[in-house]
């Protein structure tokens, strides 16, 4: 895994709240409970496999004793091969079974963890799909994606491997301890010294290194951000001859990063040798004391052999558990982010008696509508207007003045703070969202195409459309000829972000899509602002086709395109400052006039 500290920061719209570890863990457990039977099976397998593995050293020790001729009647004579053979076979059996069970366990855990991830991702995605548009607007897409993929992944690696590992370690730990006690309680006393020593050492080192590791991820993140930013802006750096200056800045950061890596490693790399030291001290102590006991016949060679092997199994898990503890921490943090997303409110359901809007005429009216994206910041104040069936309403104004807001309200992507929106005389909030939205067809500034064939993209809104209808729509949008010039025609797959077709062509495709939607109302949000003039000439024809006989709401950049609107709303800083037809507004000599004249100054 590359350092992911550079991943989109986990910003959410809200202030970061403290992680409630206990609640998160409980909720995670509840989530896991969906798979309780599989988990139980895994538990049984873990216990059995690890216990079987623990039998091995004991059998080996017994075999050594027989070989050494100790504890048997025929001491001194030849080795009792029959007895050794039996033990060897038993060992083989125990190990084989243990490995087989381990394999089954791994397969099982893979399946459990995949199912948990799958379920979790699906839950997240479904939740996200049902959320209001506002949530997506206010959260970085990268952040949401990283929750659906990386956070779920982190949780699962931890759940599937770490839990099994902790369990296995615990069994090894206690099993070995019991075994050692049965072999020689006296020798086991050594561990009264060893256990506290190893716990002390591990915690000491971890405490020292953890802040250093945090610092190092932070520094690495800074470096990655820097590199990304500057490499993306390379042409600018070249144009201003800032190469050496930038390299100098990188050097400063690089120095800090390398240094923070060194610092953290300076301490963390003592961990391995320290654990080995503890193992070796254990071995030394066992050697001395077992030798003393062996001298007096207090212990057999085989017992020493088993004991040493168990002692090795004993010290390993202590370190492992310490490692896993750290991983669990990050899993909890990830789970918290996932649950936070699952807790976000979805769009409230339509009320039970909501009316399904059918065959709308297209009379739209706003009455005293006020709205703000944030509670205390009103973007639209007390707005009223009527748009009769078949009329063209234009919304103009400088960038950032709140033009798009109006469309957000018409489509009920956001709900008004106060006031009413009427649709054919009915309150829009009494209609089902789906039927209200279906009454509109929409072309936005961002041409949205998905990875699929051109045909699927045009027919997106109406999968039941016939081939003929799709082609007719494409012809009306003046894109049919282009599509036919492609090698695969309508079956051409649009690759990531539609790089194989130009922006203007993408725009025409979305217009074709809108043409297929049989709606009485139309929304055009700066639909042609990114298109060059040549293409716009062509789009204009398609647009006129599309707008015919519909109630149209047009957000426009170029004022020349909306001169024949029935009503022009001039928006400035959230207020509709002027309204009227082009002629009326020009005669007013106000802001509209200023904007209009600025084009020719």
């Amino acid at each position, binding site marked *: 895994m590359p350092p992911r500290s550079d991943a989109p920061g986990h910003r959410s719209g809200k202030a970061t709240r403290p992680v409630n570890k206990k609640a998160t863990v409980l909720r995670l457990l509840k989530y896991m409970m969906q798979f309780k039977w599989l988990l139980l099976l895994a538990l049984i397998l873990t216990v059995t496999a690890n216990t079987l593995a623990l039998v091995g050293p004991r059998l080996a020790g017994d075999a050594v004793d027989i070989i050494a001729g100790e504890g048997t009647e025929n001491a001194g004579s030849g080795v009792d091969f029959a007895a050794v053979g039996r033990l060897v076979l038993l060992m083989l059996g125990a190990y084989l079974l243990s490995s087989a069970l381990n394999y089954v366990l*791994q397969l099982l855990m893979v399946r459990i963890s995949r199912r948990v991830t799958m379920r979790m991702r699906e839950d997240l995605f479904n939740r996200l799909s049902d959320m209001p548009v506002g949530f997506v607007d206010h959260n970085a897409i990268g952040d949401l994606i990283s929750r659906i993929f990386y956070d779920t992944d982190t949780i699962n690696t931890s759940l599937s491997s770490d839990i099994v590992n902790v369990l296995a370690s615990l069994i090894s730990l206690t099993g070995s301890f019991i075994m050692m006690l049965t072999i020689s309680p006296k020798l086991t006393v050594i561990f009264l010294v060893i256990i506290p020593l190893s716990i002390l050492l591990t915690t000491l080192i971890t405490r020292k290194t953890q802040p250093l590791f945090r610092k190092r991820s932070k520094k690495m993140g800074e470096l990655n951000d820097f590199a990304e930013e500057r490499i993306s802006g390379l042409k600018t750096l070249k144009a201003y001859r800032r190469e050496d200056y930038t390299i100098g800045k990188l050097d400063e950061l690089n120095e800090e990063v390398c240094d923070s890596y060194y610092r953290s*490693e300076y301490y963390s790399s003592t961990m391995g040798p320290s654990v080995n030291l503890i193992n070796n001290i254990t071995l030394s102590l066992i050697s001395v004391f077992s030798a003393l006991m062996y001298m007096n016949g207090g212990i057999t060679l085989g017992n020493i052999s088993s004991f040493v092997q168990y002692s090795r199994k004993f010290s390993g898990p202590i370190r492992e558990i310490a490692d896993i503890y750290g991983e669990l921490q990050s899993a909890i943090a990830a789970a918290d982010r996932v649950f936070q997303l699952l807790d976000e409110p979805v769009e409230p359901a339509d009320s039970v008696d909501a009316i399904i809007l059918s065959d709308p005429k297209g009379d739209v009216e706003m009455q005293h509508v006020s709205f703000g994206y944030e509670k205390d910041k009103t973007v639209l104040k007390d707005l009223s207007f009527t748009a009769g069936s078949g009329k063209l309403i234009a919304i103009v104004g400088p960038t950032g003045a709140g033009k798009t807001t109006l469309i957000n309200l018409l489509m009920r992507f956001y709900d008004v703070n106060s006031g009413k929106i009427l649709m054919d005389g009915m309150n829009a909030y009494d209609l089902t*969202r789906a039927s209200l939205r279906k009454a509109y067809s929409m072309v936005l500034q961002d041409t949205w195409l998905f990875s699929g064939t051109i045909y699927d993209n045009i027919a*997106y809104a109406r999968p039941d459309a016939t081939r003929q209808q799709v082609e007719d729509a494409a012809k009306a949008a003046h894109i049919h000829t282009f599509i036919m010039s492609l090698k695969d025609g309508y079956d051409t797959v649009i690759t990531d972000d539609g790089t194989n077709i130009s922006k203007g062509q993408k725009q025409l495709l979305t217009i074709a899509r809108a043409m297929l939607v049989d709606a009485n109302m139309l929304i055009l949000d700066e639909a042609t602002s990114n298109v060059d003039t040549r293409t716009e000439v062509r789009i204009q024809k398609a647009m006129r086709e599309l707008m015919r006989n519909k109630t149209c709401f047009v957000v426009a950049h170029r004022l020349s395109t909306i001169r024949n609107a029935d009503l022009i709303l001039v928006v400035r800083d959230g207020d509709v400052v002027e309204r009227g037809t082009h002629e009326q507004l020009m005669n007013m000599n106000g802001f509209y006039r200023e904007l209009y004249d600025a084009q020719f100054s």
Partner: protein
Amino acid sequence: MKLILRYIRPFMKRIAGGMVMKFTGTVIELFLPWLLTYILTAIVPRARAEGAGIVYIWGGVMLVCSFLAMLFNILANRSAASVARDSTRDLRHDLFAKICRLTSREIDRFTTPSLISRMTTDTYYVYRMTGMMQRIGFRAPILVIGGIIITMIQDSVLSSLLLILLPFMGLGVWFISKKGIPLYNTVQNNVDKLIRIVRENLSGIRIIKALSKTEDEKKRFSGINSAVASSETKAASMMAINSPTMQFLLNMGLVLVIWVGARRVDSDLTEPARIIAFLQYFTLILNAMLTITRVITMYSKAVASANRIDEVMQGEEESSPAAACAFEQKLPHICFDHVTFSYNKRAPNVRDVSFCLMKGQKLGILGPTGAGKSTVIKLLLRLYDTDEGSISIWGNDIRNIPLDTLRDMFGVVFQNDAVFHGAAGENISLGRGLTDDEMIQGARDAQAWDFLTEKGGLDADIASRGQNLSGGQMQRMLLSRALSGHPDILILDDASSALDFKTEANLRKALTEHHADTTTILIAQRISAVMHCDQILVMDDGDVCGLGTHEELMKSCDLYREIAQLQLGGEYDAAQK
């Protein structure tokens, strides 16, 4: 790999020192099991005769060895960390410096995202490996080889059991990885698809909701989600064979030692206590083997990364004529002489472009997207060299002007130009050593000072990629950067498209008042932005289809007239009359 070696070579002495320490530490550790056997077989009989004191002495020896082993290993690890630090620092510096000096053509070839990932992820993998190799990569082979030597000395027959097992383990790991890695590629492809769907859904949420396609999208996601899960299950199941098999082989070794050991004890070829040592050595060695397989995976990853870095290191750098030519100033200021250029060396992106600008003149370039407008200025800045024809400044071919001298003449705003994380002043000056007054004047001319003062003036905090700025603010920020150096030549590529007409008019006014003798090239979509220029170059699909003033072009150039009518409408004609 050569690349990595090149970067660690300067630290060979330190590495050698580290290795000696690592070697000493590891060998000492290897002796411990042997010491146990020695105590049990040789010391115990002596102690029986002489008393227990001698056992304590040998125990003390073991303890001392344990501590020495730790000491040496820690010292070696720290030296390894310092080598990794220093070599990575040098590598990263050189790579970044190289990237900065690459020709634009090379940057296009590698692509920006790929250069970024080479700079971040790949250097990280190389770093991790240089450290890991010195720490574990060296220790594990010593354990294996040293272990084999010690066991060979003690009992060559038992030791050969080990030699038989090792190839099996190696083969097993190789086989499983070979099967597993392609499976993981499938997983990656599926994950990419899934991410794409999520991205599409988030960016298209308005359309999806408007068309009530939410449920269909859920189904689409669900389908690929299960594909991801099942491909992952398949790959992980394959890899799951690995560890139980290794575990089993390891334990097989122990069983074999006992069985063969029994035979040899029976024939008086070895002693029972030796079997104890062997059981330990086997565990030690086979564990080391497992470590080696892990290191190999990491090694192959790092080598792949090193190769990717090396590709960049081999890239072509911008060349600059060495001699600082003191060029004479012959008129005109800027001249394009039949310039033709193609990015891919097939279809030209700019064909036969010619124009001349006098000092202080303004040139507007207008045309549809993809017409070659931006290419013209990239050629002028010598980000690319022309294929045919020549470009000259003050009568000197720009290929003969040192890059520093050449580019110092310009103030540039590119299309979608970069704003960097940091203070506003930092973004404006870019370390050019401009005074505060110069920057503030630049920002004023660029109509940026008002919003900048609100945000804190030159100290205003600018987020990465200018995320805390609106489109219009970003453009004004960039304009401030271009204007505050008071350049001889100003290049503005689509630099005011996000400004409303009023602000744009103010900007134009500031340019005429304070930058009157600056030769300017303006690229725009809006005709209103270029119609007042001294000359307007109209381009279409790489060709020049008109050059002249607004009035001339209205008469002579069909495309220009078409654009003018569309954007300005009939109203304009009326206003002119």
